Structure formats: C-alpha cells, structure tokens
C-alpha cells in the first residue's frame, strides 16, 4: 500500500515530465526534421535562456513573490557588459559590471518587497521599466558589438557534443533544485510562501531570505544576459522583451503555484521543456507567428485546467 502511495506520488510529481515525453514523441513522429540532431541542439539552446531564469523564478514564486523585471535585467546586463568591454577592452571587467547591474537591480527589488513591504507585482513592474530604460540609456538605444577576446566562448564553446549554455543551464537546474529541496534556505523559502507570519515566528529570517532570493534572481538574469550577448556577439537593449511572461508561463505550466508555498525543480524543467518544444515544433511547421501566440496561451490555459482537474481527482 505504501509503495502504491509512493508510486502515485511519483506519478503526480513526474506528471508533467510525462506529458513532455509524449509531446516529444509525437513531435519526432509527425514533425519533419524535429528529431534531427541540429534541431535538438537548437531547441535546447533556445530553451536554456528561459531555463536559467526559471531556476530563480521558481524560488521567487515558491516564496509567494513575483518578478516581472527579469527580461529587462537580462537585456540591461548584456548592454552594460558590452559597453564596458568595448570601452575598457577587458572581458573580466565587462562580466563584473554586468553581474553588478543584475545584483543591484535584484537587491533593489528585494529590499522594496521585503523591507518596505510593497507588493512584488507593483515593485517589479516599476523596476522592469526602469531597468529597460537604463538598457537603452547605456548606449543611446543602439546595440553594442562585442569584440572582447574570449568572450564569445561563453555562448559558443562546445562540450561533449552540446553547446556550453545547455550544460550550464542543466547544471543550474540541478544546483537550484538541490538548494530548494535539500537545504534550510530552500525550506525556508517554501515556508515563507506558505505562511509568512508563521515563518517569522518560527525564527526564519524572512526579510533576509526574500532579499537573497531577489538578489540571486538578479545575478542569474545578468549571467543569462551575458550568455545571450555572447551568443549574439552584441549587447542589445531591446532583447528579451516578454521573457518574464515566458518564464512564469513555463513555471506555472510545470505546476508551480502562483500563490506560493509549493514548487519543485522537476516541475520547472517540465514546463520549460514543454514550452520550448511547442515553440520549436510550430516554427518547424511554419505556423504563422500570430497564431503561435494563440497556441502558447491556449496551452498554458489547458495546463492549469488540467492541473486543477488532476489535483481534485
């Protein structure tokens, strides 16, 4: 009986991964050239951007918060990194500058949400615009080409047949998944999302943990921005528009609750993969881009409805 319960639980948790597996199977059967190694590589590469940011977005959502500023931070970090590299000729300085931008933006978010107790939706809606503005201001709205030595390796180096960003994303998912499930920090995150007041009274440093989560989010976004800039060999202020919605969609698709308190990396991985696969298949099938919007939204809606039905049954 115990094993049956355990099996049910596993099925519950792997449910969305199963959906992904079926989807991938269907795509490789019915979508021409989906299963080609070139396409799979492109798929994983495109998924890695959302995947990176989703790692920390998971923490944000699990703690009952929300972050709309991620897309702007990704773009801004890329531009600032590129500008510094151009002006100083130093790759290291550029990387540091980009990470500093991300960390600062994240900490500002965290401070306002945790200490000034402003609603995270409003806070990050504001910083989303501020940081996007900063990205344009950094180089007058023009994109910045990057010629710094060695920087292009970040996005294009290969390891065991896959591009480096794919490996890094996989690593980040494993690492953050471990942190959420197996460390006091992770458990405190879930506790805060589940009941903030109870968490405080249980001795959890609620504000510090929220600050840390947003700070981490900023850092990861900045890193993602660097990887993206390296892949495009330029920093582009208008890039990653709408990334925040893609990331949050992916998390929710996998089964992370928007009201906080629950979430697992498995869910995020599933959500990211499903969304990426659908996107990829639609491009291969030459689906009109207007219709792609409709399809993505419908899938999100269907997924949450399915989830509601599954948890109720």
């Amino acid at each position, binding site marked *: *009986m115990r094993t049956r*319960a355990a099996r049910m639980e596993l099925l519950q948790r792997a449910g969305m991964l199963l959906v992904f597996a079926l989807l991938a199977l269907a795509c490789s059967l019915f979508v021409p050239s989906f299963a080609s190694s070139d396409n799979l590589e492109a798929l994983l590469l495109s998924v890695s951007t959302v995947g990176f940011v989703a790692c920390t977005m998971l923490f944000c959502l699990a703690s009952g918060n929300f972050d709309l500023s991620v897309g702007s931070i990704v773009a801004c970090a890329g531009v600032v990194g590129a500008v510094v590299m151009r002006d100083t000729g130093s790759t290291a300085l550029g990387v540091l500058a980009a990470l500093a931008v991300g960390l600062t933006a994240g900490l500002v978010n965290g401070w306002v949400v945790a200490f000034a107790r402003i609603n995270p939706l409003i806070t990050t809606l504001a910083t989303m615009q501020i940081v996007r503005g900063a990205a344009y201001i950094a180089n007058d709205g023009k994109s910045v080409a990057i010629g710094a030595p060695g920087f292009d390796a970040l996005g294009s180096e290969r390891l065991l047949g896959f591009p480096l960003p794919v490996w890094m994303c996989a690593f980040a998912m494993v690492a953050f998944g471990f942190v959420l499930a*197996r*460390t*006091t*920090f992770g*458990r405190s995150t*879930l*506790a805060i999302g*589940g*009941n903030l*007041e*109870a*968490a*405080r*009274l*249980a*001795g*959890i*440093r609620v504000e510090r943990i929220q600050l840390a989560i947003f700070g981490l989010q900023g850092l990861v976004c900045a890193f993602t921005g660097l990887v993206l800039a390296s892949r495009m060999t330029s920093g582009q202020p208008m890039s990653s528009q709408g990334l925040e919605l893609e990331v949050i969609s992916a998390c929710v698709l996998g089964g992370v609750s928007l009201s906080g*308190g*629950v979430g697992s990396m498995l869910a995020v991985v599933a959500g990211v993969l499903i969304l990426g696969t659908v996107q990829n298949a639609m491009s291969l099938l030459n689906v009109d881009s207007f219709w792609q919007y409709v399809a993505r939204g419908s899938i999100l809606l269907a997924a949450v409805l399915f989830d509601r039905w599954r948890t109720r049954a």
Partner: protein
Amino acid sequence: MPPTELHLRFQGVSKAFGAVRALEDVTFGVRAGSVHALLGENGAGKSTLLKVLSGAHVPSHGALVLGGAQRSFASPAEAFAAGIAVIYQELQLVPEMTVAENVFLGHMPARFGLIDRAELHRQARTLLERVAPEIEPARRVASLSLGERQMVEIAKALSRGARVIAFDEPTSSLSARETDRLFTVIRALRDDGCCVLYVTHRLDEVFALCDAATVLRDGRHVKSHASLAGVSRDEIVRAMVGRELTDVYAWSARPRGALVLEVEGLAGPGLAAPITLAVARGEIVGVFGLVGAGRTELLRVLFGAARRTAGRVRVAGRELDVRSPRDAIAAGVALCPEDRRKEGIFPLLSVLENLNVSARHVHARSCGVLDGRWERENARAQTERLAIKAASPAQPIATLSGGNQQKVVFGRWLAGTLEVLLLDEPTRGVDVGARSEIYAILYELARRGVGVLLVSSDLPEVLGVSDRVLVMRRGALSGELARAEATQERVLELALPRAAEGAGR
C-alpha cells in the same frame, strides 16, 4: 413542531480520505428544539461529520435524514437551501464588506440587479435584533470583535431560514462575556425549535448548555445520551478517551532553581504600564486576563515579534537584546503563538516539515544542507511523544484535525535547547486526553530546568497547572497569586475592570 420529533438523523455515515477513515458507520439522531453536544478526541471526526452535514464533504456511505426524508447534499449551497447552516471556527465572512452585505451574501435583496441598500439594511437589522441588536448593519466586519462576528455568522444562517445550526468549537476564542452571550442566543434558537449541534472540548459548556450528547471515538459512534441528567463528567471523558482519566492536571510540587527569565520595566505596543516579572527554572507561571488584557502582547514583545520600546530582559542570566524572533530562539526562548492558522502552521507543508521548521538549521549539515535522517527521526519522535494523529509524516498539516495541528505547533519546540517556553493558549481546541499529555510534558520540561510562562483564557487550566499566577488587566500586571491562594474568585477579581458593576464579587 412537537419538541420530541427526531428532526435530524445521521444514518450509517462513513467518510474516508484515501486510507484515513475519518467516519465509520455513524448513526444517531438529534431532536428538534434541543442542543446536542458532539464530543470526542482530536481527530475523532467531529468536524468531518459537520462537513458532511453542510455538504462540504460527500459521505462515502450513509445518508442524512431530515424531518423524515432522506437527503444528500452535493454542495454547501444545497444544504443551505435545505435549512442547514454550519458555523465553523474559522468564520466565513468577508472582512471588507459590511455586516448587512455579509448577512445576505449570495442573496441580497435587489431590484433589476441593483442592490437595494435601504431594504438590505432594514432586513439585516430585523435579523440582528434577534442575536445582537447593538451591531450596526453598515459597519465593516473587519471592525468587529470575534464574538460580534460570530453573531453576524448566526444572523447569516437565520437569513437563509436555517432550522439546523451546527457550531464547531465556537467559544475557543471568545471572552467569558461573549460566551454567555452566545449561549443566550443558542438557547433562544433552541426554544424556537431549531436543531443545534454543538462541538466543543470544554466539558463545562456541555453541562451548562446542552440537552443531549453524542461521543465519537476514532470515527465511530461510541455513545449517545438523550438526556444529560445523571450523566457524570467522568463518564463522558471515559467514553471520549477510552480510559479512566480522573485528574487532567495531575500537578505536583517541583524543585525550583535560579531565575531563568527576568523582565524589568518592559514596555511595548499593547502594554499600558511597564511590566516586571521573573520566572525561575522549573517554574510554571500562569498569566490570566480577559481578552484584550495584553497577555499576547507581553509574550510577543518578549519574543521579539513586537517591538520592545523600553525595559530589560535577561534569560539564564544573560542580557537578551531581541530584534527578531530568531534572536530569542537563539537564546533558548520559544513561543507557541495564539492564532494557529495565521501564525502557527504552514498549511501546504507536511507534518514533518512543520515539526522541523524551527530546529532544522541547528541540525543541518554544512552550508545548510538538511540532515534528512535527523528530520525523519525527530518527526517520528515528536509525533509519538505527543500522540499526533497523522496518517504519515508526509501528510499536509492542513488535513490534520484542529487539535492535532496544535500539537504539531507545540512539538516544534521540543527538539531545540530550551530555557524559556512562552505559551499562548497552547491547548485551544485540544481534547482532554491530549491536554493531560501536554501538561505532563510541561511538567517534565520544568523538571529539566525550563521556565514556562503560560497564557490561557481557560481559568481552570491556569489554576490547574501553574505554580504561580500573574493577572493582567488593561495592558498592565494587576496582581500575583501563589498557587495556594489562587482561587477562581481572587483571580477574576484581579482580572475584571474595577469600575464595572457586578464584577466585584
């Protein structure tokens, strides 16, 4: 309606949640025009039975018989329409709406979809006349006291013409006066011919209010008394816990050590005058006061959950400068908060998570990596020690019965190093059997040198377990009584506002 007619009957009602059998073949009847007590240990299935009644749960087997006709409700709306209202402990009101709007929630008087405010207020006032005439229909519910909200909830039931009204532990957070008030209203409902089902853990109330009683144990029907005349308290307790339990408190004298908590001139929000007190190792100090006397505020300031504006606190001889609960915990101070649902539990997390939440950072390995083996072991030990009724450590705490949730919140502190234990209504909603277990654990902790400060609205409990009683009134200490001199009268005399009439008894 003849008063002896069996108005409501549970006929072989069973309800299972997965492997948990919350109710099994429960059969008994409730007379119209009577108040029927529903008793049993934590997790016995009382709340589940009420949820079956209200249509919130569909029974796996069995049915309800209402006025002779077999009924089954698929939703609370259907039960409501059939004249059944269940008033849960967590009241189902919308705080930001007015009293009148709450009373008529879902069926407001309207013309062409426009709410007729005047009519709404007039009708609400008529209903409130019967339960609490002083409540203004236009007031926001958020501004009402808990007792007043309960009255609004009753008016809401009456607005639907309810003939069966069930209460789930309605008095657990009411003051004595509000409780009296509620009893008056319930008696009036009974005299009107309503069927009243009344769930409580306070046996005094059973004898004061109820006409009949039914005891459940482990989801099964144990016994029904059609009349409580000649039924003794011990008899009911025995039916509830399944064994003899004569002295719930079982207090005995304990050796006392050095002072472990010294408070001097403490001030903070909700405290009208500086507080000075001391607790020795091995001592259990009870703090009594009416609702609003500042007891909870005192504990919160001590624990760093509210801001201390003046005063000194020493724990085990060391100056304690708390800025947050975490500092207090690090010094060995623990608090069981008053409002379980708001401040105590993490509803989505498991029993294991909830038990370990405070102690785990001490036991985690380097870099905060959790020690899974310790967590499982600790959860098992505390579950056993407190006899927590859970299907498995992985069960979400929200699906535990109320009393068992309370035990988990208490059990959270038993794993760490403890110097001072602050308890705020620790046995609210806990059954007699489990209460005596909790007291035994308190005594054991005290013997090991812990100082205990126990806030409770349950006066017999304060008198029963305390070595010394402090009394608070209007945010200040109003007196101190040794165990030998602490009687109900003397404590109440110190607790009641002096100016009030009839309070000087």
